[in-house]
């Protein structure tokens, strides 16, 4: 069985809700998908008039020549392996439950917001409100693994409860606000007002300024760190921590309700 391949037939003028792809396993055939009508501008049009769709394996989807007018790609994804080539619109992978979503390109705001599981790999940059709470809820991400090769915008990772977010680039202002728990790695620089109101969680970074209000912990051996690094490298199939040994751990904040920890990487 060959993977499902989707390619726009025309240059898209209006925004399109691509969330129908997340339910592709509910369709019996490609014909049924092509006959389905979706909103395009102020009209309802058949998918066949906008996209060329081929293939038969409903659990593997490839989107080629994606466009920034495509919103909600991978929204609520369940057990589908989806790969996207090109830049995409808003809410990529939002509310994802399981499966794998890979983007070779950049995405706009609200990417990975409210995810509950699964893996998202973005080989590009993301907009604001990344991996935070979606518009419809006050809950941040509940679980899952997210990797960003590029940079992340402002107001990201708000109210994160569980999960692992790995950012190879930089992150903007107001990130990790009201974070409840989870693990975050930022290899690049971090913007202003980071982790305001954080309760628990693990942050691995090279930014020493973040440790300002923390107490330094002893240089003990942390079995978890090696395990975590191992696990991240395994999922990414490369060692992103090369020459970036953990220097020290900071744990214990001026604000006693903040029991988060920071592992400082060698800069």
């Amino acid at each position: 069985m060959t993977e499902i391949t989707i390619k726009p037939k025309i240059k898209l003028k209006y925004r399109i809700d691509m969330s129908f792809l997340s339910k592709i396993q509910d369709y019996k055939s490609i014909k049924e998908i092509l006959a389905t009508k979706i909103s395009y501008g102020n009209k309802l049009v058949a998918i066949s008039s906008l996209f060329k769709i081929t293939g038969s394996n409903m659990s593997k989807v490839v989107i080629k020549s994606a466009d920034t007018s495509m919103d909600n790609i991978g929204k609520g994804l369940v057990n589908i392996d989806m790969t996207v080539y090109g830049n995409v619109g808003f809410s990529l992978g939002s509310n994802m439950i399981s499966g794998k979503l890979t983007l070779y390109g950049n995405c706009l705001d609200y990417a990975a917001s409210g995810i509950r599981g699964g893996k998202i790999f973005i080989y590009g940059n993301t907009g604001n409100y990344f991996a935070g709470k979606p518009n419809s809820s006050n809950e941040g991400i509940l679980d899952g693994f997210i990797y960003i090769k590029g940079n992340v915008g402002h107001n990201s990772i708000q109210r994160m409860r569980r999960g692992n977010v790995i950012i190879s680039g930089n992150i903007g202002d107001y990130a990790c606000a009201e974070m409840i728990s989870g693990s975050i790695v930022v290899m690049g620089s971090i913007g202003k007002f980071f982790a305001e109101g954080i309760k628990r969680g693990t942050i691995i970074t090279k930014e020493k300024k973040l440790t300002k209000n923390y107490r330094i912990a002893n240089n003990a051996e942390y079995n978890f760190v090696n395990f975590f690094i191992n696990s991240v490298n395994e999922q990414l199939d490369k060692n992103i921590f090369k020459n970036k040994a953990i220097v020290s751990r900071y744990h214990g904040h001026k604000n006693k309700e903040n029991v988060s920890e920071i592992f400082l990487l060698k800069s």
Partner: protein
Amino acid sequence: MIHKGIKIDNTFAEAFNMKASRIIVTADNYKWAKNACSSFTGFATSVIACGVEAGIEMELKKSETPDGRPGYSILLFSMSRSQLEKQLETRVGQCILTCPTTAIFSGLDGDDIIPLGKNLRYFGDGYQISKKINNKRYWRIPVMDGEFLCEESTARVPAIGGGNFLVLSNNRKSCLEACETAIDSIKNLPNVITPFPGGVVRSGSKVGSKYKALIASTNDAFCPTLRSISNSKLPQNVNCVMEIVINGLTFEDISLATKTCIESICKSKIKKDIISISAGNYGGKLGQYHFHLRKIMK
């Protein structure tokens, strides 16, 4: 049947349905991983009195463990779920948590989940930290050498316990040497363990006893010292019998282990002193699995 110069008796080993679980123990080096595993698998030879049968399955390289450190995998077998749960928790708490530098992970995936570090986390007295990675939850428990990392749960799978064979020899030295050769041959065979000390049993048992309180007693039919006064199954020239008990995850695993063991004895220099290979059974009425030696060796 004579297999490469050794007589294989026309008999079978009788084995039972059990439940098994696998855990992976890692440490800074093999020495401390082994210390933890030896302690964990101590007093775990037979479910009759130990509650669980456990043994080191194999040595794992750094690249084969979840945290990239040297380690060992352990298999545990028990007759009931509750006993397996209880023994696992107690032994992890007393033997792995206490051992310097160690960490513990599940070695099996499945739907039938049993706790591993789930309750052990309370040792952290509120300082424990939970982490969820790849849909699995881990606990970081602060201890005096740093932190103890343990996976929250492991899986339980159906398994078989009590596969066995007997080595009948004309002297004790050769018998032991043959058994050692056999155990060495399956040292790194996956999915099987030999739970007894060094993998060898000298006190094979039969069901029941003349004493009402005992559920098992010495297997007089295979005791060379009783040959002249009991219903012995031993010929005149057999002066020592030792048993190798094999527990495994599947029928095929135990069959392969039995075959590998016997083949290794047949290839060894000591085979001239081995009179025959036999097996222990209860007439075929108790165990759900029968391992016919001659079928296995074909």
